[in-house]
C-alpha cells in the first residue's frame, strides 16, 4: 500500500467533503456580515489544521485501527464458530472485544472531544468534559455489544430499536430539562469519523465469518444501536443525579429544621446546594457536602 498516494487521495476526499459547506459559509459571511470574521488569520490557519488533521486521521485509521479491528473481529468470530456456542470460550471474548472497542474508539472521536470541551466551557465548569465522554463511551460500548449479540443470534433490528426508543422516550420527557438536549445529541456526536467506519468493518467481518449470516442484511443496524445507546446512558445518569439531588435537598431541609430548633440558622457554614442559585448561573464547583449528612448515611 502506497502511503503517499493514499494521503493524496484522502486529502482530495476531505477537501471535497469540506468544500460545499465552505461555500455556504463564505457566501453568507459576504452577504450578511459583509466583513471577514474576527481573527481572520486564526480562522484560516484553523481551516488548514482541519483539512490536514482530518486527512491524517482518516489515513491513519485506515492503516491501523480499522484493519486491526476487522481482523480481530473475524478471528474472534472464528473462535465462536470453532468452539461452538460455549459462552465463556466463544461468545464472551467477541462480546468483550466489541464493548471495549466501542468504548475506547469513542474516546478518540474528535468531534466528541471538541463538543465536550465546549459543553464544559458553557456550563462554567459544572459538567466535566472527561466524565461526559466516558459516559457517552459507555453507552456506545453497550450499543456495539447489543449489535454484536444481534448479529450472533439474529435478533431483529426493529425489536432492539423499538425497545431502546420505548426506554428513551419517557426518560427524555421526564428528565431534568437542562440535560435532555445534550443527552439526545450525544449519540449523533459520537457516531462520526472513527466509530462509523470501525463499526461497519467490525459488523461486516463478524457477519462474513459466521455461517448463515447475510453480510448485507445483518451488517446494517449496528450504527443505529450505537446512536441510540449513549442517549439512554446519559438520560439514566441525569435521572440518577436528579434523584440524588432531591434526596440531598430533602435531607438539608430536615437538617435546617432541626438546626433552627437548637440554634439560629445563620450559624450554618455550608450553603444549601442548588435550591437558591438559579440554574442559568453556572456554579464553578460542586456544592460542598455537609459533613454531618455523610454521618447520617453511614448510620443508615
Amino acid at each position, binding site marked *: 500500500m502506497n502511503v503517499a498516494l493514499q494521503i493524496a487521495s484522502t486529502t482530495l476526499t476531505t477537501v471535497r*467533503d469540506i468544500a*460545499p*459547506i465552505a461555500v*455556504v*459559509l463564505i457566501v*453568507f459571511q459576504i452577504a*450578511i*456580515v459583509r466583513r471577514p470574521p474576527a*481573527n481572520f488569520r*486564526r*480562522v484560516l*490557519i*484553523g481551516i*488548514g*489544521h*482541519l483539512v490536514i*488533521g482530518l486527512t491524517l*486521521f*482518516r489515513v*491513519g485509521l*485506515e492503516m*491501523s*485501527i480499522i484493519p*486491526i479491528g476487522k481482523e*480481530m473481529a473475524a*478471528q*474472534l468470530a472464528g473462535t465462536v464458530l470453532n468452539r461452538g456456542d460455549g459462552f465463556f470460550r466463544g461468545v464472551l471474548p467477541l462480546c468483550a*472485544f466489541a464493548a*471495549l*472497542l466501542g468504548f*475506547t*474508539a469513542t*474516546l*478518540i*472521536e*474528535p468531534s466528541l*472531544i*471538541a*463538543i465536550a470541551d*465546549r459543553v464544559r466551557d458553557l456550563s462554567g465548569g459544572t459538567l466535566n468534559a472527561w466524565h461526559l465522554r466516558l459516559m457517552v463511551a459507555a453507552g456506545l460500548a453497550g450499543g456495539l455489544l447489543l449489535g454484536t449479540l444481534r448479529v450472533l443470534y439474529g435478533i431483529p*433490528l426493529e425489536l432492539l*430499536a423499538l425497545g431502546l*426508543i420505548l426506554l*428513551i*422516550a419517557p426518560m427524555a420527557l421526564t428528565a431534568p*430539562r*437542562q440535560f*435532555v*438536549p*445534550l443527552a*439526545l*445529541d450525544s449519540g*449523533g456526536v459520537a457516531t*462520526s*469519523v472513527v466509530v462509523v*467506519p470501525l463499526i461497519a468493518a467490525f459488523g461486516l467481518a463478524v457477519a462474513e465469518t459466521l455461517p448463515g449470516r447475510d453480510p*448485507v442484511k445483518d451488517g*446494517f443496524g*449496528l*450504527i443505529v444501536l450505537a446512536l441510540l445507546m449513549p442517549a439512554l446512558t446519559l438520560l439514566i445518569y441525569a435521572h440518577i443525579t436528579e434523584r440524588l439531588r432531591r434526596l440531598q435537598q430533602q435531607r438539608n431541609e430536615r437538617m435546617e429544621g432541626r438546626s433552627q430548633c437548637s440554634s439560629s440558622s445563620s450559624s450554618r457554614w455550608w450553603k444549601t446546594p442548588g435550591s437558591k442559585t438559579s440554574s442559568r448561573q453556572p456554579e464553578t464547583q460542586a456544592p460542598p457536602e455537609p459533613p454531618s449528612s455523610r454521618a447520617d448515611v453511614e448510620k443508615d
Partner: protein
Amino acid sequence: MNPRAIARLLRQNLRDLLPIILVIAFFQWVVVGVPMADAGMRMVGLVMVLLGLTFFVSGLESSIFPIGEGLADALARRGSVALLLSFAFLLGFGSTFAEPALAAVADQAAEAAATSGIIGHVPETLSQYSLMLRLASAAAIGVGVTIGVLRIVKGWPAAWFVVAGYALVALLSLAGTDTFVGIAMDAGAAATSATNVPLMTALGVGLATIMRGRSPLVDGFGVVALASIMPMLTILTAALFMGSGPA
C-alpha cells in the same frame, strides 16, 4: 498556535489514544496469541491518528466553532427568520452531501438493493441509486437542522420533537422490510459526521447565546438529534411507497 499548547494537546490526545491501543494489544497477545502482521505500518498509522486528532480538534476549535457561532449571531441580529432558516437548510445539506461515511453507507445500500432485486445490478444504476440516497439524506438533514433552528427560535423543548420523531421511526420500521429498516437507520446515524456535527452545534449554541431568554446549554443542543432522525424518516417513508419490490 504556540508549541507549548501543541505539546499539551498531544499529551492529552495520547491519553485518549492509549486505551484503544491497550485493548488491541491485550486481545492480540492473550486471545490471538501470534504477533501482528504488518506491525510497523500500523504503528505509523497510529502516529498519524495521533497527529491528525491533534490538528483536527484544534482546527475545529479555532475555525468551525467561531465561524458558525459568529454567523448565527449575525443572522439573529438581522432578525429575518426566513434568512436564518434558509441558512440552516443549506448548512445541513452542504455539510452532509459530500460526507464520506454517508457515501460508504449509500454504496452498501445500493449493493443491498441490487442483491434483493429491487434495482438492476448494473454500475450506472447502482451509482444513481447511491447518489439519490445521498441527496435524500442530505436534504433530510437540511430539513432537520431547519426544524432544530426553528425550535430554538420559538423556544419549543427539544425532547418533544425528538421523541415524536423516534416514535414515527419506530412505527415506520414496523411497517417496512428488514433490510431497508437497517439501511434507513444507519444512513441517519452515518450522516452525522465530524464536520457537520460541530457546525450544527455551533449554530445552535450561537443562536441560543444571542437570543434573550435562551440558555446555550439547554436550548443550543438538540439540533444533531433532529438532524439524524430526518434521513431515517425520509428513507423509511420512501421505502414504504416504493414497496419492497420483488424480494
